[in-house]
């Protein structure tokens, strides 16, 4: 019974919490910039409003234009089911689930990029190219980072190696854990189009990555895109938090998890406020550095 309740709780958090992260980030950034900022729940309002609107769709597009956001959302939800939200593991855990996570997100990217190219817009093609390119660089960092942890704990499921056995890793191979955390943070920023990789709030299409891809998506489609992106951010944030806060068991773990999420959101907000966006040509180096960090983390483990 407890398991069912926990699962339901997790489903609820997965469905409800992600936009809140966006709200927190926006509020933090506003505060640092000296503004009051939008309400914390503003992303929810935005999504709700967008879903009610009419659509404007280019005649150039095909079914892929609609499939993009749809599959991105489904993929994000599946990904969220694979990460150990809160305490006691993920909704669905199995050996190699982090690889499945990467592939599901890859599927989402495939269709988002295709949807962007579907419009025939030069700007969206540009964004799509950047998205696909950066993914190729983020992928090895992400996989190597989690592999380092997996290698250290000897288990190959997220719920297992981000579970109780993680504490021993922090004590045993702390250096490599720090490296992994750093690498994963970079991946989080890149995958979720945050500064310094991408600026979600800029108004110059030439400098965008993710935002420019969805230029033509409006109304309900944009709403779905926003919601999906929020869930993706939530997935990465969860991974990072579970890695950084190896507390397990009971309410304390839950508290630590939720607190961790909030801290992560705030941290992202702070990072976004205090750093400038990198030049587009420097992003690969940034991501390669993350790959190196994670690769080093694997090598450092003398097992």
């Amino acid at each position, binding site marked *: 019974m407890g398991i069912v309740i926990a699962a339901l709780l997790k489903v609820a958090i997965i469905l409800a919490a992600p936009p809140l992260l966006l709200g927190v980030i926006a509020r933090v950034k506003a505060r640092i910039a000296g503004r009051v900022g939008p309400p914390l729940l503003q992303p929810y309002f935005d999504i709700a409003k967008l879903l009610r609107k009419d659509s404007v769709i280019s005649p150039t597009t*095909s079914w892929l234009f609609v499939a993009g956001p*749809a599959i991105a959302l489904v993929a994000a939800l599946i990904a969220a089911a694979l990460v150990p939200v809160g305490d006691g593991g993920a909704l669905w855990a199995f050996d190699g689930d982090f690889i499945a996570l990467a592939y599901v997100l890859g599927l989402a990217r495939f269709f988002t*990029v295709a949807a962007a190219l579907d419009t025939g817009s030069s700007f969206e093609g540009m964004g799509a190219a950047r998205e*696909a390119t950066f993914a190729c660089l983020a992928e090895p960092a992400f996989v190597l980072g989690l592999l380092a942890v997996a290698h250290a704990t000897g288990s190959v499921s997220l719920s297992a190696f981000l579970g109780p056995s993680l504490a021993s890793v922090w004590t045993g191979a702390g250096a490599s854990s720090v490296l992994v955390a750093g690498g994963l943070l970079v991946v989080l920023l890149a995958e979720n189009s945050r500064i310094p990789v991408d600026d979600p709030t800029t108004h110059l299409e030439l400098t965008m990555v993710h935002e420019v891809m969805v230029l033509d998506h409006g109304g309900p489609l944009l709403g779905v895109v926003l919601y999906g992106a929020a869930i993706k951010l939530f997935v990465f944030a969860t991974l990072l938090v579970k890695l950084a806060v190896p507390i397990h068991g009971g309410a304390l773990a839950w508290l630590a998890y939720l607190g961790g999420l909030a801290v992560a959101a705030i941290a992202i907000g702070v990072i976004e406020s205090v750093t400038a966006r990198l030049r587009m040509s420097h992003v690969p180096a940034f991501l390669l550095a993350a790959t190196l960090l994670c690769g080093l983390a694997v090598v450092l483990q003398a097992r």
Partner: protein
Amino acid sequence: MIWCLAALGVLFASAIAALILRTHLYATLGALLAALLALPAAFAVLAGAHFADVVVPWGQPLGEIRLGLDPLSAFFAIPLLALGATCAAYGAAYLRSRCVPAALFNVLAGAMLLVLLARDGIVFLVAWELMTLASYGLVTFDHAQPEVRRAGWVYLVASHLGVACILSAFLLLGDSTLSFADFARHGTPVAATLAVIGFGVKAGVVPLHVWLPEAHAAAPSHVSALMSAVLIKLGIYGLLRTISFVPAFPWGPVLLALGSAGALVGIALAFYQRDIKRALAYSTVENAGIVLIGLGLGMWGAAHGRPAIAALGLAGGLLHVWNHAVVKCLLFLAAGGLVHGAGTRDLEQMGGLGARMPRLARMLVLGGVAIAALPPLGAFASEWLIYVGLLHGNTQPLLFVVAALATAGAMAALCFVRVIGIALLGHPRSRAAADAHEPGRGLVGPAVVLAALAIAMPFAAPLAVRAIAPVAAQLGADLDVAAVDEALAPALILSGAVWLGGILAFLAIRRVVRRRRAAETWGCGYTAPSPRMQYTAASFAEGLHRLLPRALRAKVEAAPPAELFPSPARLAVDRRDPFTRAAYEPLLDRLARRFSQLRWVQQGLLHIYILYVVIAVVLGLVIVTLRDGWAS
């Protein structure tokens, strides 16, 4: 077994009939009939049936010809027969009324079947070379183009060198009749190395893959499809046979290294190709690498006493053979339709084809998702098994292989979303693309069949794993079906979830956006956008291309406009394979130059020629005399 022989006979006889009666019809029917005849037998073998070898008394030096169908042969015969028939049907529509290619196609299929059935080195090599010659004839079908001739020549030379290595390996392994039954007795590392090189040429192992993109681009699409799907796999088949002959060889590390290199280099070269068929061909190099990773893992597991890992590796690698065969065949057939419709293989000349040939476009999207090994399609299940096996192996080298595989996966996604996005989506980039229309049923039908197979493959994976078990047993690994099933289950559930969720979400969102109006794509304020302003295939790949090691990049020679009154600018891109460009061609050129320098020995002077004769006599006498003096 008798059915296989009948299929063999039908294939060759129909080829001859097609040539004599000058109609392709018999060839096509022959290919279909052969598949009907032999497929049940092949499936039966995988289901556990055992057929006695057929022994035919024959002339010297063989004495007898032994043909057999063991699980390993049957495993490769199934895609050969099934896809052979599909491609033949496609070919009938693609090259209307041409009897010679149709006949050659059947000869090719027959030769490949014979390769699988052969139980001695001589018949194997005869069939192997017949296969090369037939495919050479098909590759150079359009030999009016210089690049096709070149491709044919490169293919021929590479194959010939490969055969030389295989021949040496066989001669080292076997007795005078080169019967496979004797091979296991003389297994040496040298022979194994030679076999790896020889079969590696066919299997597209980096850096021996250079013939592959050229030949696949030059050949008619249904031939490229069959080559990519089956012919390349026969290189893998040869490697597996060699493994069964020479078990005492570090197969695991060798195959893992070759596989990782192949996967990474293959896809790194694929994603920036401008020619759609070259991109597909390089992707074949990548997938051959993935298969090798799986097999290498299997061998590693077997050698280290980890049967579960061996099972996962072998099952994944072999399953990937089937998956890739189906999916790559689908892609080539669909690409053939595009090329047929748009009149060019150049991605930059395509665009907007999705709206003009919607059915074919759907097939291509499906194939693209599948070949990038994304869930829920084809190759995902097999790659998944390899991943799980690698993870369970959990040593540092294996983990780096995981990272390599993951990187290759991300690049494959970029590669194929680019092909789809540039070719099918957006606005047409050329007149021909704008005027393109969907090809007839004959070209779409086979692709639809293959697409259905690609959808079904992951869900049929547990069945396929059971079919693989006897093959693995032949390679000396006891396949733990339960372990594989356990690893496979999440992939299947995931595939189901993606299908279900994707379709539901798609339908739901389409409902929501029903209230819509049409407006041109937002041009970011620019009021007169033209199709030429779209992101091109080159620009899409540019970002990642720039990050490749210089050795793998296309060589660009640019003289940009400069100064106040600029001279004409120039941009030349060398799209040869980097290995050809940087290694093979300079090497060959240098050798040729060295050889040309030898020509001064023959300057047409009779005196000198007679001098050679005299010198030969005198020198010979001196040496023999000295030798005799030494001896006495």
